[in-house]
């Protein structure tokens, strides 16, 4: 079987997803095109250099609608003979783009792909594309729909995580992100966002809050308690699905949940022959990919079963993995992963995660694969696993091995 290799991985810095965020002035297509142009430039992608651009994006309306992937290719310097495919698997869209590309290559459909994603959360509001699962009563009631924050709190209640544990994880995420930047650990992959005149708009992650401590986080009110206990009362719905619980313990807040940001990322994936023909060196091989569906109410436990699946499919053990990236959508998601697999926190999200730097939905899956690769190279370690929880109850994972 043809193997799929990662030749390059780049990302933009993450801007605050608000009106005063640095990237708020940049369009989704332009931010995406910037990433594609960087990959083109760094790897000499002339003409029909890749089979397709697979682009993850969650909120596909407005400027992110109308097959943004193709729009961005046309807005970039890539050749028009390269098509574009927008895909949506919520928070794992960027990872799913990479996995799809890898599996296409393994299956012989093309030699190379650009895979990644974008989300301009400050420009296209999360949820503005609608969602029948949340509003269609027949579906919402049958699936016991609750918003993700409630799901994260169900995880905390079901698996016994306290507010302190969640806050500690958040403080650690901030510390690690600050340290990683200080140590220039993101240098290899960060592509500054520039304007049409070549002037820099943003070259660093701007969401990080250095100095965040337990005391600062302790002052924050639980974000999902009101909607859970009062209007409209999602906790009651949660307890219908989890009737052995007496009440939901609301531990999550803005400080221990992922940040709303703008950002994009892309990888160049190709076969061995492709690299040889292009004269570029592979950095890692994509060993395995997996995805799975789980209970949609607790929703965010996906990293556990999808990791069980990817390990079973590949005949590997958890101890074969040297480094983990587990997307910090909410603190309890990562706590549950570490609890289930009994992995040392020192090898999970070693350079911080979405709590500190933000979670641009469609891009994050691609970002964390790149971060994992950079860190494997920096530390000389061999195998890494990246995984994300996904809305509506799904999970996705990728195992890469450094060359």
């Amino acid at each position, binding site marked *: 079987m043809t193997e799929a290799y990662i030749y390059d991985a780049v990302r933009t810095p993450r801007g605050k997803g608000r009106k005063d965020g640095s990237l708020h002035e940049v369009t989704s297509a332009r931010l995406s095109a910037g990433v594609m142009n960087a990959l083109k430039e760094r790897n000499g992608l002339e003409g029909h250099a890749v089979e397709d651009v697979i682009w993850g994006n969650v909120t596909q309306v407005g400027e992110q609608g109308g097959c943004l992937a193709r729009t961005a290719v046309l807005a970039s310097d890539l050749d028009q003979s390269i098509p574009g495919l927008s895909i949506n698997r919520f928070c794992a869209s960027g990872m799913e783009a990479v996995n799809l590309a890898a599996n296409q290559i393994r299956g012989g459909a093309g030699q190379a792909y650009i895979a990644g994603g974008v989300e301009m959360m400050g420009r296209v509001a999360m*949820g*503005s594309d*609608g969602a029948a699962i*949340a*509003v*269609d*009563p*027949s579906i*919402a*009631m049958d699936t*016991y*729909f*609750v*918003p993700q924050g409630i799901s994260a709190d169900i995880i905390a209640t079901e698996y016994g995580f306290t507010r302190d544990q969640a806050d500690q994880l958040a403080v650690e995420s901030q510390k690690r992100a600050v340290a990683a930047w200080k140590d220039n650990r993101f240098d290899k992959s960060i592509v500054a966002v520039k304007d049409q005149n070549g002037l820099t708009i943003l070259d660093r992650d701007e969401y990080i809050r250095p100095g965040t401590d337990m005391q600062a986080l302790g002052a924050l009110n639980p974000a999902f308690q009101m909607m859970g206990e009062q*209007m*409209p*009362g*999602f*906790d*009651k*719905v949660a*307890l*219908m699905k989890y*009737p*052995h*619980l*007496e*009440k939901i313990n609301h531990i999550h807040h803005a400080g221990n949940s992922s940040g709303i940001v703008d950002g994009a990322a892309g990888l160049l994936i190709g076969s061995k022959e492709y690299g040889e023909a292009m004269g570029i060196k592979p950095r890692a091989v994509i060993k395995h990919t997996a995805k799975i569906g789980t209970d949609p109410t607790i929703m965010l436990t996906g990293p556990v079963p999808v990791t069980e699946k990817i390990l079973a499919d590949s005949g590997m053990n958890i101890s074969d993995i040297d480094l983990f990236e587990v997307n910090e959508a909410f603190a309890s998601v990562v706590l549950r992963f570490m609890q289930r697999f009994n992995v040392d926190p020192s090898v999970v999200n070693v350079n911080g995660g979405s709590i500190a730097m933000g979670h641009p939905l469609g891009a994050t899956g691609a970002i964390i694969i790149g971060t994992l690769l950079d860190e494997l190279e920096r530390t000389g370690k061999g195998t890494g696993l990246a995984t994300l929880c996904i809305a509506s109850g799904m999970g996705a994972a990728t195992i890469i091995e450094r060359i």
Partner: protein
Amino acid sequence: MTDFTLKIDSDGVGVITWDTVGKSMNVMSRDSMALLNDLFDQALNDDAVKGIVITSGKDSFAGGMDLNVLAAIREEYKDDPAKGLFEFTMNGHHALRKIERAGMDPKTNKGGKPVAAALPGTALGIGLEVPLACHRIFAADNPKAKIGLPEIMVGIFPGAGGTTRLVRKMGAMAASPLLLEGKLNNPQGALKAGVIDEVVPADELLDAAKAWVLSEPKIVKPWDEKGYKMPGGAPYHPAGFMTFVGASAMVNGKTQGVYPAAKALLSAVYEGALVPFDTALKIEARYFTQVLMNPSSSAMIRSLFINKEALEKGANRPDVADQKVSQVGIIGAGMMGAGIALVSALAGIKVVLIDAKQEAADKGKDYTATYMDKGITRKKVTAEKKEAVLGLINATTDYAALKDCDLIVEAVFEDVGVKADVTAKVQAVTGPDCVFATNTSTLPITELAKAAKDAEKFIGIHFFSPVDKMMLVEIIKGVKTGDVAVAKALDFVRQIRKTPIVVNDERFFYANRCIIPYINEGIRMVKEGVEPALIENAAKLVGMPLGPLQLTDETSIDLGVKIAKATKAAMGDAYDDAQDEVLFWMFDEGRLGRKSNSGFYAYDEKGKRQGLWEGLSAKYPTADEQPDLIDVQHRLLFAQTLEAVRALEENVLEDIREGDVGAILGWGFAPWSGGPFSWLDIIGSPYAAERCDQLTEMFGERFKTPELLREMADKNQSFYGRFGVKAKAA
């Protein structure tokens, strides 16, 4: 005589008058709907008619649909009842849509004849859905009139366009209390809510409506015009999105997943909001049909509407002369006595309220005063009314005052000796025709009757607490109780507007007999190590209003202990004491339930329930392996249901309708099911018997399939099929 008539007045207004033959309130039947349709056609096609007013010949507009129609359609379309119900519903839509369009050009909305509804009083269900199809709704300023769509209360939802029209008229948020809770308004309230358009003095009603239809008004409905936007936003409008996300969660949490009507209603609203009006009506009809096809809705209609009314109207009343009570004597002015005095006086019955001490009697009367004061604060009662009601109650210690009473209700301490004394004291004064009733909840009627002069005139009338809120009254016949006493009790219950069931005299009669095993099963599970939260949530998820542990806290642990001791004494070795250890331990700990601010639950100093008491799992650790939800639910439901079946086997119950209605009104037995017998019919006797066998195997002999149920399972019979003859005759 027909239910609708059309009269074309000289001013050019066609007045269609609804006046159901032989009924005090208009109800819609299939024939009358067809007639309305014909008369409307006639008026529409008559060039002399410039506008149309639909009104009523009675002092109310209409009470709703004749719900017996639904059963008739099911019967008629036996092979495909869904088809019959859907077509019936769509026919209704076509007729009402014709009224709404009133001959307007479908493209330009030009032309058409104005149609006004003129409501002299109450307009419920289809009695409001017809007006909603008209162009303007006038109501007489009659504060007692009730306007609304109460269908959800009997397990269905407004299916004659009321759902679709109200949401388009008011928006989903504003319409939700009216649709999802069946909230009724008086005319001013309905006007304020935006349900109706104008309130006028009663004597100007018809003139106002006529003047309006003759004023060449704009008649096209907003939703038939280009650019219509739903108030508050459709589901994928940002504001509407939040409304709909919240609505599903609220309905889910509130109904705990056991009431299909609310979910179907919401789905019809959501899906209807995404399409044009006529398509929305079709969607409404499909969901309405789905609800009608759900056995839960027919069971709820049967128990909560048809049979409840039949029992209230005396379905099981012996054929003796009117026994209306003119003066009632109530002995014992405690909580029960005071409550019985209140509901009697409210019904206009003279009351003699006796207690051993004058201050106790006065305190009992104060209960009524306080109740009326609350009404005054809420502007539901006038000061004059309060005085009139209080004037009916004579609070005294003097038994001689009972001389002219034709009914006595004794509500003194639960002790055979004390009650015997009271009976003798009372009967020394009262006449030979006076019926003596005891409000005991635990003592055998036949035993208490021994103290009476005439056991034929002695009966049990068991009220539930709080008397003014609980709608069920359990009438218990002792071995010798005669027909006149039964009729007396029934007529009294009818006067105070409650729902009676008549049962025979066995331990705990009917209601308490069934609720005790429910409580015991819950406590037993605590001992077994089942998560207390799972016990409580499982009960709610099967439609019980309170979990067994919370219910024990409400009724108090010491009462539980008392019942356990008395039952053990009476039953001897046959008594199953599995739950007593937990119960007695709680009692010894001084945790008596809500009244001591401590029980299975913890309470704050104000008495607000907090969470399950932590000490409970400390004493009875929860097991690592927890049972399946369905097993917990079935244990809780079958514990009650099998007791109801045994009550039927032992002839405590004579009529399964009483078993079902009594269960829902008496202790809140899963109303969605229509009651224990309806529930068994829904799941089917073969499955019920099989399930009992499994539960017996897993949990013990108390789940043993009763012989009657076994026999019915073998013959694949249903309870209403086998015992429903009486029900049909009513």
